[in-house]
């Protein structure tokens, strides 16, 4: 099964040989998480293969069939995932009870699922959850959007001019290796303890995957395509918008997906270190105040948020299907 990461690997040798090879390997490492997600949705990878191997023109009928098949697969995967999740919840319900009875550990530290679920329903009903969730979403969304708006055009530009890329690459690598969290104190100093410092932190963390995969995407566009367009007298602008941008899109989108996952991680850390609202704060605060069921309820809502974001990204990626027609 070919994954995006490997596809990148496959296209790499085509690139000009003078390009520094560090960044390729790095990017590969960066792109790799997409691998697991794609392997969960095999229809996507086969679509990529098809696009690469042939330029067949497909009718809207067959894409509708694809759509139906994809929906069928998805519902099947839901049915497949039910048993283990139910098993997990049952274990969560009964292991703490049994362990407490046997004096193995105190169930105050790991309350049974029903207790946690009750706490979750409570905060969902009285609006606490919604308040924290909206604050968190606002921060993550703003930072993530900012990263997209800044990093995609910048990446396109840098990838378009190899000399600029070669010049900037070491600096970009250094910045990328600097964990975003390390810069949080700096952002607090520069932007105060309010919202901007958190938004900037998320922007900062989210922009690197987008920037680097956009650069690689532009660099690994098949030179044949640009040459063909140029021989047909396309202007630079046309080549850029009609050839480079569509060809680089899959790579760009991989970066965007990575950035989305990354921004949630950073959001939580930032809210735990310095915030008075948000889901990360909810988890941290309820731990400090020893409201353990509430803490687990916060964790559950965070993982649901992560799942939803991931699912959204996969569905948006599915919109790519227009490209193959």
């Amino acid at each position, binding site marked *: *099964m070919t994954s995006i*990461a490997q596809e990148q690997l496959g296209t790499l040798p085509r690139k000009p040989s003078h390009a*520094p090879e*560090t960044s390729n*390997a790095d990017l590969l*490492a*960066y792109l*790799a*998480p997409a*691998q*697991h997600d794609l*392997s*969960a949705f095999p229809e996507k990878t086969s679509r990529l293969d098809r696009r690469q191997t042939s330029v067949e023109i497909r009718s809207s009928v067959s894409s509708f069939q694809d759509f139906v098949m994809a929906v069928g697969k998805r519902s099947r995967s839901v049915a*497949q*995932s039910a*048993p*283990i*999740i139910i098993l*997990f919840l049952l274990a969560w319900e009964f292991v703490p009870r049994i362990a407490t009875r046997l004096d193995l550990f105190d169930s105050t*530290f790991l309350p049974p699922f029903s207790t946690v679920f009750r706490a979750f329903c409570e905060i969902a009903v009285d609006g606490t959850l919604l308040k924290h969730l909206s604050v968190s979403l606002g921060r993550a969304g703003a930072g993530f959007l900012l990263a997209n708006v800044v990093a995609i055009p910048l990446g396109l530009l840098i990838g378009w001019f190899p000399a600029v890329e070669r*010049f*900037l*690459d*070491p*600096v970009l*690598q*250094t910045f990328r*290796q*600097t*964990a*975003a*969290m*390390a*810069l*949080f*104190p*700096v952002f*607090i*100093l*520069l932007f105060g303890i309010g919202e901007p410092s958190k938004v900037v932190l998320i922007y900062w963390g989210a922009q690197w995957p987008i920037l680097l995969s956009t650069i690689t995407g532009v660099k690994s566009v098949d030179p044949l395509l640009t040459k063909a367009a140029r021989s047909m007298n396309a202007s630079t602008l046309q080549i850029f918008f009609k050839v480079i941008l569509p060809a680089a899109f899959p790579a760009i989108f991989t970066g965007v997906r990575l950035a989305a*996952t990354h921004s*949630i*991680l950073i959001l*939580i*850390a930032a809210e*735990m*270190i310095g915030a008075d609202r948000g889901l*990360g704060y909810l*988890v*941290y605060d309820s*731990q400090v105040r020893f409201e*353990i069921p509430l*803490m*687990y309820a916060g*964790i559950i809502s*965070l*993982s649901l948020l*992560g*799942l939803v974001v*991931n699912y959204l990204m996969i569905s948006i990626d599915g919109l790519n299907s227009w490209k193959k027609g």
Partner: protein
Amino acid sequence: MPNMRGTRRLRKITQGAPGILTFLALWETVPRLGFFDPRYLPPFSQVAKAFWKILLNGTLLVHIGVSLQRSLSGFGLALLLATPMGLLLGWYPRLERFVDPLLQLFRQTSVLALFPVFILVFGIGEFSKVFLIFWAVQWPILLNTVSGVKEVDPLLLKAARSMNASTWQLLTKVVLPAAFPSIFLGIRLAATYSILVLIAAEMIGAKSGLGFLLFDSEQLFQIPTMFASIMTMALLGLGLNYGLQEIGSRINSWKGAEISES
């Protein structure tokens, strides 16, 4: 061969130098122009001085040692547990299909959200941090191992089986080497990830380590020291990444040689 590698490395360094030098020059001059308060963004020379100071009096080494110890223990634990687990899951696809939803759920649960849980369960000492890193690092290793094992060329397996190899031989002689590049990719990803998590954990609750040094110097308003610790983290991250890259290419080149010999 080593000579070629040497010149390539030299060329890479000379290529990288202008970008880095420009960046440092900007860092030196921009704060002096007065766009920002220079107390908040000190010029590079002051940061370098602070770096040199904490390096000489040993503070830096103590914190680096603590951080490295935490992250290496978590890493070792993850390697010991996640690699065999990944081999198992990759080898039995039905088991993998059964467990996969749970793995996805756990992977989507941000590690840092679980830090309070680990503190509750393991106390505020070293072990909660080590476990946090273990937890964060195991997912990339586990998932990459699974996909590596699943993508082993079936031809290799059939060839080995037709030569009457036992399952154990198959696993150790065919599957593990064939899946190694993918596993190593997971390890590299995990390394980058572990630094981020470590720093966050040390900022949230620790009394030593680089994250603590950073947070503490911010609280004490020792801004040059703060920047010096950020610089240390960046260098550490770069070094780790570079080191793993070297190891990876060395192991891979050895593999290539063996294949071409036989």
